[in-house]
């Protein structure tokens, strides 16, 4: 293994041009004089395949970068494989990327279980696992996993923001929580417990779960209504979030409904559920909502729309997945620019942890990307928004969670 790492390093260095000065121990893999390889896995098939658009968005972004001349004189070779949201498949595909395709880094692999499965491997191989597309809190653990970093605000941050709002505006609220029985869902439970503190048991009167493999969550919704709750927190992926919205409306329940940001997308959740059925629902945002007319003349969103028009002409412009993809890609792009000509894995990680008040065209005004060697949570701010029938209306200030 040591020998292989050395050989890979030697090969990379030789290919990148032996004349460049670099630290003695730097490992450069997946970089030639003309190319930089980036690896990725996505659920293009299976239960979570609605997230596949994020992979298509990523691929299109790097195509655009290449059309504009690449980064540091190099074209990006973006290689993305289907992992079907299955941890064993993710391990297989990531090993292919790291050992066979010899990518410089992994960017934006999606899913909490899949990223958990590859995290130890990536850190043992010292292969950067960057801006993973999941909001679990654990991706900020730079002490144990210095080669792994998240991007979006963590689910716990989001839940703490809801808890604070509930405490203030519904002091006598009876809260029901439905969450997906995995890391993603449980982070909301932890965040609510954190945020409500000692009052958790006073507020929360009903907690139900579902499995990502379930067919429907209708019975869970009925159970929550029967508990007498008047505040509902939903931590579900879009397919189930849409079911919750529809069922709540159909049985005539009118709770104050807090919806995870993961499922706030108009295209993926609201439209399938029925826009009129979601009126009044509250979520939190960090990205500009592509359906919000407020951003019709916004330079950042115009940049995104121009990109979509040229590179994903058939893409659904209401699907927030493309916006998230664009945001993560611009952050990655910035890191690569900061690398200059030194694309060693060490320098890549150094630049990943050196993002200062970085503005991203698709982030809400006031929200910036910040990292440091002791902060691996790039985005920590959000703003609440309410669904008004056609668009979300943001209210209150940007909150740091």
């Amino acid at each position, binding site marked *: 293994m040591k020998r292989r790492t050395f050989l890979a390093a030697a090969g990379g260095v030789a290919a990148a041009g032996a004349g460049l000065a670099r630290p003695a121990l730097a490992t450069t893999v997946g970089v030639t004089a003309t190319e930089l390889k980036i690896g990725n896995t996505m659920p293009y098939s299976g239960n979570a395949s609605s997230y596949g658009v994020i992979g*298509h968005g990523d691929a299109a972004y790097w195509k655009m970068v290449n059309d504009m001349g690449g980064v540091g004189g190099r074209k990006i070779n973006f290689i993305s494989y289907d992992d079907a949201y299955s941890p064993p498949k993710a391990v297989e595909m990531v090993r292919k990327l790291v050992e066979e395709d010899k990518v410089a880094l992994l960017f934006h692999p999606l899913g909490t*279980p899949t990223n*958990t499965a590859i995290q130890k491997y990536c850190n043992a191989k010292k292969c950067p696992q960057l801006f993973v597309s999941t909001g679990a809190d654990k991706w900020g653990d730079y002490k144990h996993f210095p080669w792994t970093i998240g991007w979006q605000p963590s689910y716990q941050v989001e839940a703490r923001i809801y808890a604070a709002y509930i405490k203030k505006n519904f002091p006598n609220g009876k809260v029901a929580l439905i969450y997906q029985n995995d890391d993603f869902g449980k982070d909301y439970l932890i965040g609510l417990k954190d945020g409500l503190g000692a009052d958790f048991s006073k507020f929360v009167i009903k907690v139900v779960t579902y499995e990502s493999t379930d067919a429907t969550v209708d019975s869970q919704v009925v159970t929550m209504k029967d508990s007498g709750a008047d505040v509902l927190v939903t931590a579900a992926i879009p397919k189930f979030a849409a079911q919750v919205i529809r069922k709540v409306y159909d049985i005539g329940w009118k709770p104050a409904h807090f919806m995870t940001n993961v499922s706030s997308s108009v295209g993926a959740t609201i439209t399938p559920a029925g826009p009129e059925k979601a009126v009044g629902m509250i979520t939190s945002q960090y990205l500009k909502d592509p359906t919000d007319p407020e951003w019709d003349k916004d330079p950042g969103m115009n940049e995104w729309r121009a990109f979509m028009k040229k590179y994903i002409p058939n893409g659904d412009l209401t699907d927030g997945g493309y916006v998230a993809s664009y945001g993560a890609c611009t952050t990655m792009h910035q890191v690569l620019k900061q690398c200059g000509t030194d694309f060693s894995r060490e320098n890549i990680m150094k630049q990943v942890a050196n993002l200062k008040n970085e503005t991203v065209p698709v982030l809400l005004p006031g929200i910036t990307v910040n990292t440091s060697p002791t902060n691996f949570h790039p985005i920590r701010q959000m703003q609440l928004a309410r669904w008004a029938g056609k668009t979300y209306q943001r209210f209150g200030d940007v909150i740091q969670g």
Partner: protein
Amino acid sequence: MRIMSSRLVLVLLVLAMAVVPLFVSSGYQLFQFTMVVAYALAVLGVNLVTGYNGQISLGHGAFYAIGAYVTAIMMDHWDLPYWSTLPVAAVICAGVGFLLGLPALRLGGLYLALTTLALAAAVPQLLKYDLFEGWTGGVQGISIIKPDAPFGLPLNADQWLYLFSFAVAVVLFISAWNLVNGRIGRALKAIRDQPLAAEAMGIDLAQLKTRTFAASAMYTGIAGSIAAIAVQFVSPDSFASALSITLFVGMVVGGAASISGAVFGALFIQFIPNIADQVSKAAPGAVYGLILIVFMFVAPGGIASLVRKWWPAGGSRARST
């Protein structure tokens, strides 16, 4: 003479399959082949109970998961060596399989299929259950460390694990071959084809059916153990109910009631999804389905039956099964 030569070909083929990848394959490819070995054992398990004995199981993913978790828990909580976990997984899965075989006696055909499917659907949820969380790691799963080669052998971890899994598989495949080609095998097939006649011949249906379920679960459980060591990670999401269907697909595509079919089926379920992904990122599931249909048309008796036609050396023996 003819039997001798066909055996020799088979032995040489198996030896080549064991040794050649060590020299020509990368670590990643060895990992894939190790997964093929695991899938082959799992599919063989399904084949024993469904292909040979006619009891349809859509729940073998559950045994696969149990085997994997037994290994992960033993390695992670008690620091036991990986090889010691295989027999334990085998015994536990055989026990669970035997117990599941009891209700299977009363349920025939489609009803048994549904019951086993229910088991497959329940297991991921049970693995997350609070009561077991201390052991199973809940939704977080368990990460384990890949073993190095023993006795200072000049092999890396991937090479060793492939060789180890392959050796285990060879022993289990030979056992299965002996089982189905002997007296018990004939009884199994008799139960599948004519249960009434089988009973009249003096075969103890209940005993044989439950024991077949136990043996079948044992095979699939060992497969799960090997897969867990190779992947170095288990979590409830690794064993979604679709896994059971995948194993069933492997059995049918490879060839029901065929020992070699398990290997072909394993190759199919390991590599075809990758090919589908290469063909189309937009709809890999649809491409996979299309390939599956094509296979069913081209090789209605499974890939094994197709190979039998083209490989005369094995023909005389294979036809008798």
